[in-house]
């Protein structure tokens, strides 16, 4: 009984501290945290497809963009458009296209599928640039703040609360999804499609589901991004963004929800180290990735993951102590 009370107090304290962040730290810090949250949502999306189901997606920026533009389009046309519906639309449209891609997944697998995702990404970037009447073309379009009834989430603080709240909910759902039968089906498919089928796992159902959910998450992330940045332009959804997403899940650890968080943080912190000089950052990531692949005995699957697991374990241990 005493123990529960303690735990509750700690939990409440954590929430209060969390809510206080905007007041303890400046606007910029809060903004960065919001971006991290968005990246976490995107990472979770990528992880579901790439980490758990084993399909490497090089075009996930397409879903990010679809979600972002969906929000941008409704939130710029209709003042006071409810954000929840906006985000749901973003996720759903994205998810539907993901579902469609999932059907491509049934005809092929492995590298062919990865190349197909690459194609999707390149096509969507062009669509964003050229469908000027809808998307404003390369110049992009402005986004009005998220709304709930008459409330507007305008300031960085309000956006932070909104985004982190949604991120937390989505994280919670993702963890439960992975722990469920659906999550296990995904992993089974990753390990061996043939074995999975012999267990009665329908490839049709689960591959398309994985694509759809992954796209949904990434789409919602895109929608949040649109609200946060208050502006969307095609350049945010090009192949370089897509590669960033891949890097996030690889660096954070494939097939791990906590890894999604780790990857998101690392990916956001990195530019700061390079003073925002993009090409050094990319160069550096490329070199580090190569070193990991070449020097560790099993490359990305071996010692690196043991290292990451160890880091996660320490983080988890600390959580348990609280």
């Amino acid at each position, binding site marked *: 009984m005493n123990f529960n009370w303690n735990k509750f107090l700690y939990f409440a304290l954590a929430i209060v501290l969390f809510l206080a962040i905007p007041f303890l730290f400046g606007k910029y810090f809060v903004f960065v945290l919001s971006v991290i949250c968005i990246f976490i949502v995107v990472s979770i999306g990528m992880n579901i497809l790439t980490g758990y189901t084993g399909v490497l997606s090089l075009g996930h920026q397409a879903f990010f963009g679809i979600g972002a533009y969906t929000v941008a389009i409704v939130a710029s046309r209709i003042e006071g458009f409810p954000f929840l519906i906006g985000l749901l639309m973003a996720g759903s449209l994205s998810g539907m296209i993901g579902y469609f891609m999932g059907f491509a997944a049934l005809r092929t697998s492995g590298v062919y599928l990865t190349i197909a995702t690459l194609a999707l990404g390149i096509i969507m970037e062009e669509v964003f640039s050229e469908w000027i009447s809808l998307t404003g073309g390369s110049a992009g379009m402005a986004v009005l703040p998220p709304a709930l009834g008459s409330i507007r989430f305008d300031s960085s603080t309000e956006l932070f609360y909104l985004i982190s709240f949604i991120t937390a909910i989505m994280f919670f759902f993702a963890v439960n999804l992975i722990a469920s039968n659906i999550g296990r089906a995904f992993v089974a498919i990753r390990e061996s499609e043939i074995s999975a089928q012999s267990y009665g796992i329908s490839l049709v159902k689960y591959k398309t589901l994985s694509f759809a959910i992954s796209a949904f998450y990434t789409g919602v992330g895109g929608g949040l991004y649109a609200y946060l940045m208050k502006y969307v332009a095609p350049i945010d959804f090009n192949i370089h963004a897509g590669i960033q997403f891949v890097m996030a899940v690889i660096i954070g650890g494939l097939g791990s929800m906590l890894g999604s968080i780790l990857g998101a943080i690392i990916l956001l912190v990195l530019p700061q180290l390079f003073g925002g000089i993009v090409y050094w950052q990319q*160069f550096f990531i490329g070199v580090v990735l190569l070193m990991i692949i070449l020097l560790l005995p099993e*490359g990305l699957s071996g010692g690196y993951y043991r290292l990451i697991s160890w880091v996660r374990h320490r983080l988890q241990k600390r959580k348990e102590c609280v």
Partner: protein
Amino acid sequence: MGLIAEIIQQIIFGMVMGCIYALVAICFVLIYKGTDIINFAQGELVVLGAFIGYSLRVTFQLPYWLVFVLSFILSGFLGMVMEVLIFRRVIGKPHLNSLMASIALGMILRNAIGKIWTFDDLNMPPSFSDSMLKLPLGLVISPLFIGIIAISFGIMMIFYLFLNKTKTGISIRATSQNMTAAKLMGVSVSYVSSMCWAISAAIGSIAGILIAPLLVLNVGMFIIILKAIVAAVLGGFGSLPGAVLGGILLGVIENLAGVYFPAWIKHVFSWIVLLVVIMVMPQGLLGAKKIKKV
């Protein structure tokens, strides 16, 4: 210009671009056949070759034939270095490693090229005259076009002879069919791997130098070159004749699409073709059975 003439004109343009796609697709498929690796950095290798050619021509003022030769050798050497340093070491590891390795290499190359040369656009002097000659029916063609097509076919023919008549070529074919058996015949798999990367980079550089005057010489060019992957898939992954067929076909239909659709569709047309091929006919035109697991 009448419709027929317009179509023929676009076919001419398409043949030019198609030859380049074909060359790069050959490079891509060669590495796949010889080493089972998907080289996502193929575009960057071609761009690197183009920039090397630019320096040889513009900075060192060398005659173009020498530019081609030196670039071929230099790029071939760089390709071999990349194989030895990077790709030889990923052979035993799970496939995700080789995929990510080529993606990482692409990132490094793109940014290295930008840092060493520039991230801005450069004007690549054409290897043949690019002034348009007038033909009947209002068609135009330039010596550059003819040069590109001629050199491309020349390379393809030499490559064909290389694969079928030389010991190295035969060992590459054997390795791609059955690596274990090839080893037991005395074929050195590392040698095959090095040669595939060297040749791929070398031919790629020629393709880059040829096409750069028609596109803009810029690091971002790699995305255009990446379309050669579509050509490879269209032709049937793992098939070299397929790569040639796929490349030329892709170039032509891409340009024909430009006649009927708005200009920007042409840019993504290849990728739409890719999605269609993958969903409808994944084995491509000249059929390939192997589909690798990630």
